[in-house]
């Protein structure tokens, strides 16, 4: 029992938790200032998410890509890289899986995995472009990966227009049924919410994240490079190779996320006029999750609930969308601003220490 309490009062757990509460309180103050009832709004949010089977299923649909992009950012972060490019890696993953999904006619047990692997490889390669430029030329990965987001967006639109979109349409042909990863019986149970195998793959990816970083030699190297590249080099590790590797694996996570979005949710790819946004949300998810796999999954759940539930706040309590963004932003703000939160946490931690003595 004491162990359980210890886990919940650990600083790494307490800081994000307090940050979330502070964020929600700030949001409440903002809503009060705007003349809305925050209690009613938060109840409406929860009602939206948990109120019906359909909406609960759709929340899971919303959470899934956030786990992938959160892992993509967190993985690179462990090697000391700031991967802003999850967005672009997500998009090329979509393109690759659409290409495989539309073009081939294979048995389902080969087709769907092949489409996902195509997405993973495409995302990985896209990520490693930024990694390679960093390793070989010392170009800051923040700059390259953010630029590559735009390249990916317009490249995707060009590929779709050139090869997959019938004349006069705005979206590609439907992917073959054999590539679809929607779970129809589960979907039927949830009132035709768009549930798919991607959610399970996301959980497996989080486990893979943990195993490779903390249970293998190459994971040790990746983390060592992140903690101190100079010391790692002195110890005989190849820093450049690890940088490319970290960006490849990070990109792979995002790429699979994009693939699952196509194969599980849309079943086609539309021309995008703006970035889907999962990659940028992934940065916040990784940040809230403290760059740990469990943290990322939990943060994605929180983020997914907030974004999907925000429609409920509009619907149930009349809070305008702009104000809902303020609530989400203040949660992120407090998570990012550790220092402020620690001021609030300190008295609790101090008390615990005294109690221990």
């Amino acid at each position: 029992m004491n162990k359980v309490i210890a886990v919940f009062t650990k600083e790494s757990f307490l800081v994000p938790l307090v940050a979330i509460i502070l964020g929600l309180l700030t949001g409440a103050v903002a809503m009060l200032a705007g003349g809305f009832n925050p209690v009613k709004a938060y109840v409406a949010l929860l009602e939206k998410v948990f109120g019906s089977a359909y909406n609960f299923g759709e929340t899971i649909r919303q959470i899934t890509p956030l786990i992938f992009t959160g892992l993509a950012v967190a993985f690179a972060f462990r090697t000391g890289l700031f991967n802003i490019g999850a967005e672009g890696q997500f998009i090329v993953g979509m393109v690759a899986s659409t290409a495989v999904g539309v073009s081939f006619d294979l048995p389902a047990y080969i087709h769907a995995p092949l489409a996902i692997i195509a997405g993973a490889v495409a995302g990985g390669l896209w990520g490693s472009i930024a990694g390679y430029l960093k390793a070989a030329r010392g170009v800051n990965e923040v700059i390259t990966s953010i630029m590559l987001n735009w390249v990916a967006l317009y490249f995707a639109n060009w590929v779709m227009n050139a090869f997959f979109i019938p004349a006069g349409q705005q979206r590609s042909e439907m992917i073959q049924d054999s590539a679809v990863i929607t779970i129809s019986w589960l979907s039927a149970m949830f009132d035709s919410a768009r549930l798919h195998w991607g959610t399970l793959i996301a959980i497996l990816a989080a486990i893979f994240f943990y195993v490779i970083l903390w249970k293998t030699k190459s994971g040790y190297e990746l983390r060592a490079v992140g903690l101190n590249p100079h010391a790692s080099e002195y110890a005989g590790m190849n820093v450049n190779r690890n940088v490319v590797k970290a960006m490849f694996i990070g990109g792979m996570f995002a790429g699979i996320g994009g693939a699952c979005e196509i194969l599980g949710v849309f079943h086609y790819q539309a021309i995008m006029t703006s970035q889907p946004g999962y990659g940028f949300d992934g940065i916040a998810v990784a940040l809230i999750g403290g760059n740990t796999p469990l943290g990322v999954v939990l943060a994605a759940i929180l983020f997914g609930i907030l974004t999907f539930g925000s429609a409920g706040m509009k619907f149930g309590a009349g809070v305008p969308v702009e104000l809902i963004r303020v609530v989400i932003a203040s949660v992120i703000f407090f998570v990012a601003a550790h220092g402020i939160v620690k001021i609030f946490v300190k008295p609790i931690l101090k008390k615990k220490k005294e109690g221990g003595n």
Partner: protein
Amino acid sequence: MKKVLSVLSVATLSLSLVLAGCGSKEAQPQGQTGANGGATGSAPTIKVAMVTDVGGVNDNSFNQSAWEGLQKLQKDLNLPQDNVNYLQSTSDAEYVPNLTQFVKDKWDLTWGIGYLMGDHLKKVATENPDSKLAIIDAEVDAPNVESVLFKEHEGSFLAGVVAAKMSKSKKVGFVGGVEIPVIKRFELGFEAGVKAVDPSVQVIKVYTGAFDKPDVGKSTASSIYGQGVDIIFHASGGTGDGVFNEAKDRKAKGQDVWVIGVDKDQSLTFGDEITLTSMVKRVDEAVYLVSKDLTEGKFEGGKIKWLGLAEDGVGLASTSTKNVPEDVLKLAEEYKQKIVKGEITVPDK
């Protein structure tokens, strides 16, 4: 120091709790009056909702226009405030859940605004055959969906007539958003109108690939004006804000350039100095009329409604008289009559 901080943190927390408590008390009577208002409302009570596309409800364009239509409905029919509502979509993944939210909540009619929502609305309509839905700008083939489309090419033809008459450089421009059938109708109608008046006038056409990028609109407009064009017609939603911005800059430097606005009367937003006229598309009227028909039990599910010049669904803004001389407007009116009578067929594909 630490003690002070801990006291402060407790104070902040309790203060926010107190504030939250006040809020709930304050809001309650508001909710009650809303409910009372509903009880005293007149006989036909319907609940109509709309889902915007990614442009959002303040896009200065057709989403906003549609919402104005619903607000008018609420006022005219004396409906309670809560009987019209909208949800804004931030990505295309949200179209289906947003539409479903209203449908499952048994709203009488749910609107999807925009071509991009077609497939998604169809999915929701097939899954909920008892619901009633309607869509602007797209054809959805389902027995419980009424599709409303506009003959943008007819209205744009008149914009083309005005542009060809007013251009001094004999060069006019067109800035499109994404190259989809709707926007193509604007382009083709505009070009046909220009050529009908004067075949020697050159039309420079550019698609920006986005409805929400004013920066791209500005740079595109800059390059088109740079080629000697003096009038640009834009059909690009929020991207067009940048076209107006560029025109304003050039006007300030003494150049004689104009913009023809789209969807709403954009001279109201951007001023008469740069807005020559606007090709208005009465999305608000369409939303209003179809929703109102529902109160009289007239819902034409499965039907595709085309609104053109004859139905006053499209046309030039009434404020055109400020910048366009009377003889030009008269000519436009003549063309309008010819189109309505079917003497001229404007190409749409």
